[in-house]
Each structure stands twice: as structure tokens, then as C-alpha cells.
């Protein structure tokens, strides 16, 4: 079997917005994914909002990161249907992408539905992929939900995380339908990132 050398990773840099998140930043180029992982009208009864900031080692919010979310639907199924453009033709894609440079506080907010469990030993979660200036590699983490203590307790991956760092993967419910998920690149609350 051939083994080809893997292409090295490089930073996304500070200027990705007009290419990867153009519509959000007001550039004249369409975007294939934004902050809505579902059609908000079709799912209005079950919408949730996931917000957060990304903090550097000085505790400063990062203004030039790009964050992607990929999740299963409420039944625990990942969509295999090709994403279409214009958006909202599909009621659920499960894929979102936002830059952190368009709000004053560098906050991101995804609009979605709470995913179902994808396996018996897996709590509801969202796969999170992060890129930013100053990061030379793809950063992978996961978002779990604070109001799923029983499922979280039975989640194999969450269980393999050091107990004192587990909270970095759990989005906190701030009020009905709203969850807060901050990512800390460094420091005492440094988010757990995965080696893929």
C-alpha cells in the first residue's frame, strides 16, 4: 500500500473572512455555512442558541478565529444529504461556521437544535473545530450540555478526560434554550483539545 506524506498544516491567518465567512463579514461572496445549523422556522419550537468567546493566554477574547460546528440531529443522526445553496432548502444540515470578528465582544452564536445521542455510551454533543491566527494546526474539541448530567456521566469520551478538566467541554445552560461555551486556549481552564 502506498503511503503518501501528509500535507502539513498552516495557520488560517488573520484574513480568512472574505473567503470562508464572507457573507457574515459583509463581503460580496456567498457563504456555504453560517451560524444556523437548522432552518430556524422549521425548528422554531426546539431551537437552542450556543454562544461563547475564545480566550487567549492573557484572557483576551480572540477577534480573528473561525469556529465550525458539526452535529447530529435530534434523533442522533448525522445528515448525509449534501448541503445545498441557497441555504434553508434543507431544514437541517448540522454544519455551521462563524468568524469571531463581527460582534463587539467577539462572541459567536450558533442557532441549532440539541443533538440526540449517537450511541448508547455517547451523550449529546457537538463536534467543534477551531482555526485562528496564531494556531498552526486544526484544533478539535467537543461541546456537551450541562443539563444532560446522566448522559454525560455515561459518555465514554468525557469519562476518559481528567475529572478536573471535564468542565471545559460542558456548555452551561444560562437560561431556557441558551448555552454558553467559552474556549480557553491556555490557562487554568484550558479547553481539552483532541489529537486527531
Amino acid at each position: 500500500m502506498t503511503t503518501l506524506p501528509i500535507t502539513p498544516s498552516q495557520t488560517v491567518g488573520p484574513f480568512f473572512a472574505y473567503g470562508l465567512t464572507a457573507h457574515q463579514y459583509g463581503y460580496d461572496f456567498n457563504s456555504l455555512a453560517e451560524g444556523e445549523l437548522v432552518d430556524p422556522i422549521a425548528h422554531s419550537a426546539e431551537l437552542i442558541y450556543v454562544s461563547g468567546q475564545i480566550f487567549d493566554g492573557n484572557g483576551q477574547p480572540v477577534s480573528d478565529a473561525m469556529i465550525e460546528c458539526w452535529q447530529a440531529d435530534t434523533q442522533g443522526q448525522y445528515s448525509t444529504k449534501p448541503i445545498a445553496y441557497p441555504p434553508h432548502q434543507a431544514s437541517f444540515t448540522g454544519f455551521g461556521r462563524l468568524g469571531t470578528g463581527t460582534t463587539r465582544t467577539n462572541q459567536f452564536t450558533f442557532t441549532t437544535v440539541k443533538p440526540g445521542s449517537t450511541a448508547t455510551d455517547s451523550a449529546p454533543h457537538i463536534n467543534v473545530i477551531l482555526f485562528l491566527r496564531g494556531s498552526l494546526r486544526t484544533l478539535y474539541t467537543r461541546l456537551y450540555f450541562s443539563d444532560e448530567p446522566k448522559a454525560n456521566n455515561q459518555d465514554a469520551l468525557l469519562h476518559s478526560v481528567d475529572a478536573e478538566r471535564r468542565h471545559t467541554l460542558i456548555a452551561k445552560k444560562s437560561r431556557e434554550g441558551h448555552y454558553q461555551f467559552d474556549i480557553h486556549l491556555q490557562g487554568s481552564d484550558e479547553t481539552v483539545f483532541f489529537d486527531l
Partner: protein
Amino acid sequence: MEPNIVEPDKPATASGLDQSVPLSNHPLHLSPAYKSTILRSPTRPLMLVPDQMKNLRMPVFGDSCMGPLDNDLTKNARKNGEPIGERIKVAGRVLDASGRPLPNVLVEIWQANAAGRYIHKAEIHDAPLDPNFLGAGRLLTDTEGRYSFYTIKPGAYPWGNHYNAWRPNHIHFSVIGPHLDQRLITQMYFPGDPLFAYDPIFQSVPKHARELLIARFSMNWTEPEFALAYEFNIVLNGRNQTPFE
């Protein structure tokens, strides 16, 4: 003033380890010569995850996502004429490490214009914008994993990392492969760039793997009286095992 030459990399694994273990081709997260990594790279070891997680299928994008000019950056933002600069073709294949071509992969690119100016609003480099050039494009690879863009050769541009810091000419690539561990963002460089030795981002890649980021000039693919061609192949992680579908 002497150029600020970047210190050579430390090896990607600690010395004394079994040298038969292949070194990673990726940069370390912390690469202090690229100063932004100091406060922005994880300090704790990354957590190992089961293959099942690596094998998770990523979203796929339909043909409706692609506009007819999305892969032609010389045409996709024209306002009142043609963009200025050297028209080039950048083409290649997206494969996995086992040599399998990866079809229907979303490849997105973005870059500076011929003068070395990004259209991004936060960019302050004093070089002209080109009213007929955005510098962004995208496509889906074909059934053989092939892709092809037309664009304008990007210029070098200065940045604030250190005194007299310049980025080599480069095109940013974002690739969403079929599995979770095949999500890659990288940069493609041009052969023979004199700035390689001075660029801490290029130098962050272990020495043995740097050439993988340099496109190959292709006379074969060059289009007579139209555009020089560069070949850049992208290799994503292979599969350790056949995932259950």
C-alpha cells in the same frame, strides 16, 4: 540592517526517541518565532481519541453550492475590467495518505492580490486594492480527486511579526475531507521564493516536510499564451482501518 533570520526548528520529536518512528509533518502548536502562537497554542497535551471519532463522516456539499465562476478568481469579482497581475492556473489532486483520490471534497482558497494586498477590512498594508479582484474561490474535487483554479499570482506582503517581516507569496487552502480527521487548512507556496528562509510560518513546518507546501511548476499544464501552471497536491490523513459504513 541584517535580516532577521528565523532560528532552525527543533526536531518534531524529542531526541533520544526511536528515530524509526516517522516524524509528524505538521508544525508544533507552539512555534515561538511565529509570535502569535505564544498566547494562542494549547499548553496541555492533546487527548488521544478512539478511531471511531476520527472516522466520523463530515458534511458533504452539493453542486448547487458552486457558482459557475467560483473556481476562476480572475473572473469571479470583475467590476470594470480584468484583474491586474500574472494569470496562473493552480491545479492538483486531493488524496488520502493511502493514495486514494478523494472526490467531492470542498476546497476553498483565499489570497492577496498581485500587489500583496488582502481585501480584508483589517488589512493596513499600503498597497493598492484591485477593483476587479476579490481573491477568494472554491470548488468540489471531481471523481478523481482533481481540482483546478485560475487566479492571479499573489504578491508578497509585510506583517508585524518582527522587524522587516515579509510573507512569501502564498495561497491559503481550506479542505474538508470526508472524515473528521481530514479537516485541513494550509498554505501553498511558489518554487524558489527567497523569503522561505525568513518566514517563521513556513519554517514552523518540520524541515523534512516543508517541500510538501511548495507547488511544482508544470510546463505540461501551462496553457500556451494564457497562463503558467502550478501543481499542488494535498494529502489528508489515511484510514487506519475500514470504517463501518
